[in-house]
């Protein structure tokens, strides 16, 4: 260890000494003032900057066009107001940049335009390849987005054959058929199929869709549709005024509008396959608790989820689904008698802030805590919620910080084993840290359905918090933890290397952070790239990849940068289908990574 460190320091010293002797150029970037700053304050160590143009900074993830706060180069400056870890220039190298110098860099980055999505190398891959015709491109997007073969006499196909439209343009027109701007319901058959397909795509991104977490929550399936989480994305896609970032803001949740020829009579999910008779909805009184000899609770006029074909999406109406009471069950199993009842009159569709992060359904699916048990900041923390945020929205698996960062949170004297070792703390600091934001929430049952046990509904309940905080964020377990004001620790290093470690006080703050992180946009573009082309990009393999993959990575990065700028999923789709990747019939099929099955060896079985 010491030897390696010594070698490294020697290299740095040599670098520092060596730097000052050679002449330096001014980088040829789009801002003269910023170029001066770079030359005078950065080139001594970052010698390669002198040869960079704007796009070189972008390519290396140092700069996000138009967004200095998200740019590694700017955010790591001491004196910038970025909220990320600020280390540049290092203290040994001198004073921080002056406010004017910081401003110059900020202005430079703000003015950089997002690049065109063209990646030159992609063109060369397709050279000589088998290219799709305009009609075939339209047939392709039609089949992918509607999951239905293109009818031979389609009006748009005619226009293509007459030379009036290109394939890509026809695809764009097709996408318009599902617009949700004017009306929440889409009337055309093609429009509905579009909504259904993209809903299916968005739903596949969520790691948890099973409402049955612990015993006796079967009723949840009748009043919650996990697909409504995916609706945030589908709504943004088909509503041009709904920015992608709005998914992480506010308290409005979304619901799918479904159409059926008749109302449903029975439960959606059977809770036992051996039930000879499916349960009738009308016999099921959610939360009324009318049993012989028991207390009667206020009945709950909940509207069970209607079933049917998806025909539209809308924001969930406020105050329509009010839950009157919840039971404080201390034990894991249902024992209602003598338990405290909370009269809450809670709108179960209302979010808790941070858009989808505080969506009651997202919370319910991911909290994974026993009914009635509150977080204690030690063993009992809703960790799955935190890991789902990283995975579902940013395509990141834990750990999301490098191991040296974990050292400061290690406590060898903690009774909890996962606070003692660096390799444990490395994940727990991010998970437990963020989960502190929902420390006040717990899951409780509504009251007995009257149809016997196993069928209850469970909901998120927020406990009233005190004013002051005393327990540490990464503590050992304390009953007071769940009663304190919500606060969490954001410990996160983006793929580009920007490191954040700071307290966050609300779900909105966390939502803003995600909405501005490049990881989120790269995740979105990667997923759409997969859906449209079958290319499954490894976002972590950038530095270790072959030529082909590096080009794909750069393409994805450009898509993500543009997405962060225009905030439109529709534009993302257009960027992808306009690229040579979409036009190439055997797009990069010669890449070695396609796994092929080998035939098994068969032996005659004689025994």
């Amino acid at each position, binding site marked *: 260890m010491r030897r390696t460190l010594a070698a490294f320091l020697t290299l740095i010293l040599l670098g520092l000494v060596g730097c000052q002797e050679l002449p330096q150029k001014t980088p040829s970037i789009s801002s003269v003032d910023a170029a001066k700053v770079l030359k005078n304050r950065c080139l001594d160590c970052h010698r390669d900057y002198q040869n960079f143009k704007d796009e070189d900074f972008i390519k290396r993830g140092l700069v996000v066009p138009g967004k200095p706060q998200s740019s590694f180069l700017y955010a790591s400056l001491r004196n910038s107001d970025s909220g990320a870890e600020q280390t540049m220039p290092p203290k040994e190298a001198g004073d921080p940049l002056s406010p004017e110098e910081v401003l110059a860099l900020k202005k430079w980055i703000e003015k950089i335009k997002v690049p065109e999505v063209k990646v030159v190398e992609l063109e060369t891959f397709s050279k000589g390849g*088998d290219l799709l*015709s305009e*009609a*075939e491109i339209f*047939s*392709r997007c039609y*089949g*992918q987005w509607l*999951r*239905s*073969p*293109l009818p*031979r006499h389609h009006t748009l*196909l005619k226009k293509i054959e007459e030379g009036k439209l290109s394939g890509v343009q026809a695809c764009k027109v097709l996408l318009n058929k599902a617009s949700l701007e004017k009306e929440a319901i889409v009337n055309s058959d093609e429009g509905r199929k579009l909504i*259904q397909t993209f809903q*299916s*795509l968005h739903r*596949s991104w969520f790691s948890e*869709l*099973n409402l049955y977490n612990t015993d006796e929550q079967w009723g949840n399936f009748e009043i919650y549709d996990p*697909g409504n989480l995916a609706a945030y994305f589908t709504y943004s896609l088909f509503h041009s005024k709904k920015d992608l970032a709005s998914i992480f803001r506010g308290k409005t949740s979304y619901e*799918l509008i*479904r159409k*059926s020829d*008749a109302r*449903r*009579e*029975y439960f*959606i*999910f059977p809770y036992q396959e051996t039930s000879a008779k*499916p349960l009738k909805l009308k016999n099921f009184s959610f939360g009324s608790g009318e049993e012989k000899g028991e207390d009667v609770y206020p009945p709950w006029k909940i509207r069970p*989820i209607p*079933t*049917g*074909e*998806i025909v539209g999406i809308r924001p969930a109406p406020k105050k329509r689904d009010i839950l009157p009471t919840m039971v404080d069950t201390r034990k894991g199993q249902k024992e209602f008698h003598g338990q405290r009842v909370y009269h809450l009159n809670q709108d179960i569709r209302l979010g808790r802030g941070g858009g989808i992060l505080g969506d009651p359904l997202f919370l319910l699916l991911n909290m994974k805590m026993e009914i009635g048990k509150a977080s204690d900041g030690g063993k009992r923390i809703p960790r799955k919620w935190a890991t789902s945020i990283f995975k579902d929205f940013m395509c990141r698996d834990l750990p999301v910080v490098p191991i040296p960062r974990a050292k400061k949170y290690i406590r060898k004297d903690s009774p909890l084993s996962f606070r003692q070792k660096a390799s444990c703390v490395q994940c727990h600091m991010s998970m437990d840290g963020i989960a502190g934001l929902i420390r006040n929430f717990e899951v409780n049952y509504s009251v007995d359905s009257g149809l016997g046990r196993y069928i209850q509904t469970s909901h998120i309940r927020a406990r009233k918090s005190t004013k002051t905080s005393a327990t540490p964020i990464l503590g050992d377990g304390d009953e007071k933890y769940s009663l304190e004001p919500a606060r969490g620790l954001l410990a996160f290093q983006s793929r580009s290397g920007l490191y954040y470690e700071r307290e966050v006080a609300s779900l909105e703050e966390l939502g803003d952070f995600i909405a501005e992180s490049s990881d989120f946009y790269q995740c979105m573009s990667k997923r759409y790239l*997969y*859906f*449209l*082309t*079958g*290319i*499954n*990009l*490894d976002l*972590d*393999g950038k530095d*270790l*990849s*072959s030529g082909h*993959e590096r080009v*794909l990575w750069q393409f994805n990065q450009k898509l993500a940068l543009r997405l962060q700028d225009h905030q439109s999923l529709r534009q993302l789709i257009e960027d992808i289908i306009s690229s040579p990747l979409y036009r190439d019939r055997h*797009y*990069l*099929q010669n*890449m070695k*990574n*396609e*796994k092929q*099955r080998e035939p098994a060896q068969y032996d005659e079985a004689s025994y």
Partner: protein
Amino acid sequence: MRALRTVFTLMMLFFNHVLWSQTQVQTRYGDRLFVGELLLRVFGPDCKTIVEKEVFNKPHIFGGPCDPYSQRLVKVKEGYKTVGPREKCSESFFSQYRADLIVENSPLRSGAIAKVCQSLSQKKACLNHALKGIDKEKDSIEEIFRLFYPIGHERLLGEFKMAFEDVSRKKSIDHKFLLKLFCQSEEWQIL
């Protein structure tokens, strides 16, 4: 063993870096809805039962998750029936609810397509619907090809035509056979 692996890893890191990325390219197959609807279009609505059984109800083979909230139960004489739009689930909701969007080719998929093509071309009503309007007197390779490949794919058509010249020079080609062949050719499943 683990130590040796680490050393080897470091070596490989500096030399052959092609292996390490996990980027993969899957052939972008259409899912059960796409495949099923194309078959229905070719073979006609009389074949709905076969296509439903062999394609729509097999998301684990063809891909394409279902949506249990799209359907509802109704009481019929024999018991209960599921009624719903094309996204409805058959049995075992959750495994289908979380089925993959894109499922590549595998022996099961190959076998399933072979089976459904065989079943459809053997049923008279379906066969007649598919071959409606096709001149029985001619070889009609292109017409039958176009049932599955209405647009483009000229190169593939050329390959098939060459194959027929090589392989079955003497016989005149049975239309039912052509139908089965193009049905099993699989390129039409790829989007």
